[in-house]
């Protein structure tokens, strides 16, 4: 039997790894190790960010790490035979390794991983591995500092809230620290509700201790002795890993009474959300923890003065908190070297939609959208034409191709009409209808409006009705004006961020893609060939390249095509399944 003491295989088992079949790969490796009677440690880790390459496994031999991509159970034998058995790396499957150039290197080239420093590196269920990578050193350092020094350090780092609003974290902590009261609370907002964003899930699944440690440091700074993590119930794996991490931290006295021998104590609870987007808003979240309907209330008083059970309360987002231990360990100065003048540090972005390399990336603030979408994200799927990127979810907007060189920082993104938000970037190509996207978001906000403010409750519904009739080809000339009018009313008369930003997806698409609205209303055409009611299933002869792809894609043989001839759709046979439209790379079927 070979001595493989220092041999490790690590399987990526975040939600994306599992969804791609990670557990089957893990199981196969486990069986093979047993069958071959070799001494190899089998471990699991969270998401390294390369979701497009899942299932990912890493082979570590004496510290040298080789990351393999697109692994399935059938590929396991070869890796065990060649790499583990003979020490020969299977080059063609390598995603990342030192000394081996791969196509995926450009995915990492511009990244700086601070919040994600441990994701995909350590086992999220092992506190030892977290500790080995400087884990819980920052809280040790923090309790030796004065509370004011800790607040100052975070203030000096320039860190701004990563949940969406971008409020300076240090300032928030100062308000809560200076608030009068014996009892204070520290809350982590893990109610990641933005459709299109999944960094909070990945951080908790991949590195739960960094969030706990961030909370500890914050709680110490503001003087809180009790805290809550409010996490979406839709993230079962994250919830499970949080419970495990908390009990590990309690065992080692990183949580509990007199932490690390200091007189700082902190008790941490998990609260599973019950599904309400508005609970991302601080006062609504607090109401939800109190067991009530999660409806926002008028501010002031701000939670820093009167929050959970009317006690001073500080709330930070998951990604914000994951940065905190790094800042305390490495210093504010080092952190603030990353980024731009007003947006310091790094930001995690979730790349999704019509992008080649979907996944999670962390980059210094100040890169351009082009660098993120094309250099890191590899550009658009099927080499179609880039149309827009949606940022900020239902509160954000669609940034068009003409602004692709915008730098990514809070102020530049806000200037486009979108917002940084929590960092979701959903990329859209020429086949995405911008009116439909606006309709999609209004449908979402209309559903999620808590109903407290009339304009948000009723206004978003009226806007949705207008958008519905536009995509159905029943739009009226005055609809655009009506949408703008309603938008400005909803923005000015809503209490919380949900209503105040709900019209943004409509306003930005009207600003940059007004012609698409007009085409729907006046010409009864959808330029993206996406809105069902406006499809005619006709070939546009000028655009047809006579390639025949549509004829091959048609399941009903309804398309007549011969070489060097424009395709023709037989409407009697056509079942309107859209297979031809999807297959056509030239937008030649409308």
């Amino acid at each position, binding site marked *: 039997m070979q001595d493989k003491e220092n041999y490790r295989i690590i399987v990526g088992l975040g939600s994306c790894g599992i*969804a791609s079949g990670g557990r089957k790969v893990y199981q196969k490796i486990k069986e093979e190790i047993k069958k071959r009677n070799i001494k190899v440690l089998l471990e699991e880790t969270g998401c390294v960010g390369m979701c497009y390459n899942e299932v990912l496994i890493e082979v570590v031999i004496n510290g040298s790490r080789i990351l393999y991509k697109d692994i399935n159970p059938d590929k396991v034998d070869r890796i065990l035979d060649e790499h583990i058995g003979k020490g020969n790396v299977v080059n063609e499957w390598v995603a990342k390794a030192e000394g081996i150039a791969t196509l995926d290197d450009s995915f990492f080239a511009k990244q700086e991983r601070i919040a994600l420093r441990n994701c995909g590196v350590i086992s999220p269920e092992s506190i030892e591995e977290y500790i080995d990578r400087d884990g819980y050193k920052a809280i040790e350092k923090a309790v030796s500092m004065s509370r004011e020094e800790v607040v100052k350090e975070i203030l000096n780092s320039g860190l701004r809230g990563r949940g969406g609003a971008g409020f300076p974290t240090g300032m928030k902590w100062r308000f809560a620290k200076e608030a009068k009261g014996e009892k204070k609370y520290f809350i982590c907002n893990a109610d990641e509700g933005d459709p299109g964003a*999944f960094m909070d899930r990945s951080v908790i699944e991949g590195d739960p201790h960094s969030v706990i440690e961030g909370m500890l440091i914050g709680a110490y700074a503001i003087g809180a002795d009790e805290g809550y993590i409010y996490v979406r119930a*839709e993230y079962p794996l994250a919830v499970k890993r949080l419970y495990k991490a908390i009990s590990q931290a309690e065992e080692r006295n990183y949580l509990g009474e007199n932490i690390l021998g200091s007189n700082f104590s902190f008790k941490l609870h998990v609260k*599973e959300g019950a599904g309400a987007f508005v609970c991302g808003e601080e006062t609504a979240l607090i109401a939800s923890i109190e067991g*009530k309907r999660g409806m926002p209330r008028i501010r002031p008083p701000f939670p820093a003065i009167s929050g959970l059970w009317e006690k001073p309360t500080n709330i930070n987002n998951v990604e914000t908190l994951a940065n905190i231990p790094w800042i305390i360990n490495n210093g504010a100065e080092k952190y603030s070297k990353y980024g731009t003048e007003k947006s310091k540090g790094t930001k995690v972005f979730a790349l999704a*939609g019509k992008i080649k390399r979907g996944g999670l990336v962390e980059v210094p603030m100040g890169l351009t959208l082009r660098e993120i979408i094309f250099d890191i994200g590899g550009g658009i799927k099927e080499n179609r034409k880039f149309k827009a990127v949606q940022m900020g979810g239902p509160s954000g907007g669609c940034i068009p191709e003409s602004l692709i060189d915008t730098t990514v920082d809070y102020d530049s993104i806000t200037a486009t009409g979108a917002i940084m938000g929590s960092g979701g970037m959903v990329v859209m190509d020429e086949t995405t209808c911008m009116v439909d*996207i606006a309709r999609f*978001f209004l449908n979402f906000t209309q*559903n999620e409006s808590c109903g407290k403010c009339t304009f948000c409750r009723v206004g978003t519904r009226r806007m949705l009705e207008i958008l519905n009739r536009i995509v159905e080809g029943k739009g009226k000339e005055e609809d655009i004006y009506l949408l703008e009018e309603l938008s400005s009313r909803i923005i000015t008369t809503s209490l919380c961020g949900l209503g105040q930003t709900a019209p943004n997806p409509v306003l930005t698409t009207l600003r940059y893609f007004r012609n698409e609205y007009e085409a729907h209303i006046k010409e009864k055409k959808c330029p993206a060939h996406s809105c069902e009611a406006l499809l005619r299933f006709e070939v546009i002869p000028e655009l047809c390249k006579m390639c025949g792809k549509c004829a091959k894609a048609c399941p009903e043989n309804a398309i007549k095509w011969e070489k060097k001839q424009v395709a023709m759709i037989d409407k009697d046979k056509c079942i309107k399944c859209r297979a031809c439209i999807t297959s056509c790379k030239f937008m030649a079927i409308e």
Partner: protein
Amino acid sequence: MVGCNCETKLKGILDEYRGKSGSLIPVLQKTQDLYGYIPKEAMEEIAQGLGMLTSEVYGVVTFYTQFRLTPVGKNIIKACHGTACHVGGAKAISEAMEKALGIKNGETTKDKKFTLEEVACLGCCSLAPVVMINEDTYANLSESNVASIFENY
């Protein structure tokens, strides 16, 4: 439910949480785990147990999307309709599932095996379109292959 002994178990849940502040939502979550939904009788029981009005309990139940007022099937299918899934063709996926199961969004199959629900976002955006059955996530689905995921249940 036959053989569930739900009422006694609900009393146990209420005993565990009685007197604790902010306990309504966790109590409702556990109640739903028990019954698969929140029956009217349970709401009355909870209100009495926690010293609240039934209308307050009902208000909370109807506010959050997690809580259901009707029984569900053995397996719950959550079809993601987040932004990335929408752009990636979630509508066609949902239609294909409706066709395969013979039910509409929100309904349960006659054999009580599946309940179909459209949800906002499951946070697996880079693998869109995505469907979750119970706690398993299925990724990169297409209209033609989506029905095959039911075979595992």
